[in-house]
Structures are given as structure tokens and as C-alpha cells.
């Protein structure tokens, strides 16, 4: 069994409304040391695959077919082997 830990963020060129809103609120709360906030998604997918290489391929497939919209989002992931 594998667990993919997927971090998804809007591409850097795209305005991040939620990040900006959080920045504003933090500034209003007096956190002047905060420079930037970006808000994205974190996904954990647990699945079975025979080996790491095919697990990686599978996750890329899931991300491009459903989990991530690559027009606006970028992602990175880590694969952790877990007990079934």
C-alpha cells in the first residue's frame, strides 16, 4: 500500500484570492512579519500498486485526470509506503 501526499498550489502567475485574504487578515491582526500566504490543497491518497515506479505513474494519472487542474494548479507529491 502507498500513501501519496500531494501538495497543490495555484501556479505562481495566478492570483491567489484565499492567500491574499489571509494576508490581509494577518496584517490587520498586526503580523507585519508575514510576507506572503498561499493557500492550496493537500490531498492524501492511499492506494495499492506493485512498486514505487508504478505507484508514481498512477498518482500522476490520478492528478491529471481528476485531482489537479493543471491549467491553473501545480503539484508535488511524496510517496510513503504504508502497511496494508
Amino acid at each position, binding site marked *: 500500500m502507498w500513501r501519496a501526499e500531494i501538495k497543490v498550489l*495555484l501556479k505562481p*502567475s*495566478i*492570483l491567489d*484570492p*484565499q492567500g491574499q*485574504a489571509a494576508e490581509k487578515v494577518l496584517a490587520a491582526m498586526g503580523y507585519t512579519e508575514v510576507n506572503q500566504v498561499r493557500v492550496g*490543497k493537500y490531498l492524501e491518497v492511499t492506494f495499492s500498486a506493485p512498486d514505487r515506479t508504478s505507484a508514481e505513474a498512477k498518482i500522476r494519472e490520478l492528478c491529471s*485526470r*481528476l*485531482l489537479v*487542474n493543471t*491549467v*491553473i494548479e501545480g503539484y508535488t507529491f511524496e510517496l510513503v509506503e504504508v502497511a496494508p
Partner: protein
Amino acid sequence: MKFGIIVFPGSSGDLDAYHLIKDVLDAPVEYIWHEASSVQGFDCLILPGGFSYGNYLRGGALASCSPIIPAVVDFARRGGLVLGIANGFQVLTEAGLLPGALYTNADGRFHCHFTTLRVENTDTPFTRNLGRNQLLSIPIAHGEGNYYVDPATLQQLEESGQIVFRYTDEKGQVTAEANPNGSVGNIAGVCNETRNVLGMMAHPERAGEAVFGSIDGLALFNSILKYWEGSK
């Protein structure tokens, strides 16, 4: 001609479109359950507004993986008319039938109110009854209507006339204040290259009776009907 309204799990705007086509336009219309594998017998497919799958993950994302979608893609490739309203627009971009993507409104909030749309292209089956630069009063109701395309695609959309509507002020000016969600270039609706697939965030089906504040949405549906008459 016959309209088909695709019903995804959790679809909430199917009723609105159905009501307009049946009760106001008195045209043939049926619901199509998302597990259907064929859209045979229909001439115009509507992917309704509202929500589907609670818009979980991203608006339109889960619906775009429904069993019916390959049939919709095939229908569109063969020139069938497809109209995506709000959530339907999101489904169409997620399914790759329209360029770009829709994401969280620039101010992070859901917006429900009337907007003014300027008609940018009348050479589509959906807008042929309208005048160029005509202004339409049509409401929006969405939280993820912020349209994005990369600059290169944007230029291509401009050049090939795929931008069908823009948000403007009441005088028809494209202004930042008139942009309800942060969409690039105030884009409110786009079509595919062959112009038989249209996506828009505003709800023409909610602007079909004077008692609801506007009948400007009717022109869209009348265009479709007229187009169909002509193409028979």
C-alpha cells in the same frame, strides 16, 4: 429540436433550465441522468448551473469524470450544440471541451446578483439573435467563476472570436468594478473554435420571465431554436 439537460449527482440548477425550456419556451426537453452512455436523440445539451457533487474538490471537477462525459465530448466533436451554464461551464473546462479554468472569485466570496454582459460575438448558434455589443442583464450566482487562461491562449481566443460575453458596466464599458469575480479580460463566456460549445457563468435560464427582473436570457435560447430551424 430537443433539449437534453444533464443531471449529475447533486445537480441543483437542472430544474431552472428545465422550467425555462418547458414552461416558458414550450420546447421539448428531457433530463439525462449522468450514468447514461448515449445522448442520442438530443439536439442541444445543457450542462446546468448550480452545483454538482457539492462542487467538492473544484467546481465541476467530479462531474467532469461522470460516465456520460465521453458521450458529451463525442456529441460536441460532431458539431452538437452544448451549453454550459455556471457549474456547467466549469464542467466543460474541466472536461477539456473549453479552454481555460474557473476558480475562486477574486474576493473569495460567493456572489449572487445581476450583471451586465456585453455580446462580443454574434456569429455563434447561441448569439445569432443578438446584436454585437448588445447589453444583457443576466444574474450570476457562484463562488468559483474567476476565469483564467494563459496569455498565449487568451490572445488566440481574442483572435478567433471565441470570447462571446464580457462583464461590463451598465454603459457597456469593461471596468474592474463591473467584473464580479476577477475573470481575465472581464470574460463572461467563451466558446470552442467551432463555436458549437458555449460556457458562461451568468444564468440565462434565470432571466426568462419579467417577474424575475429580466428576459434577456431568452434571446440565447431563441438563437439556438432559430439556428436549429435554419440548419434543418
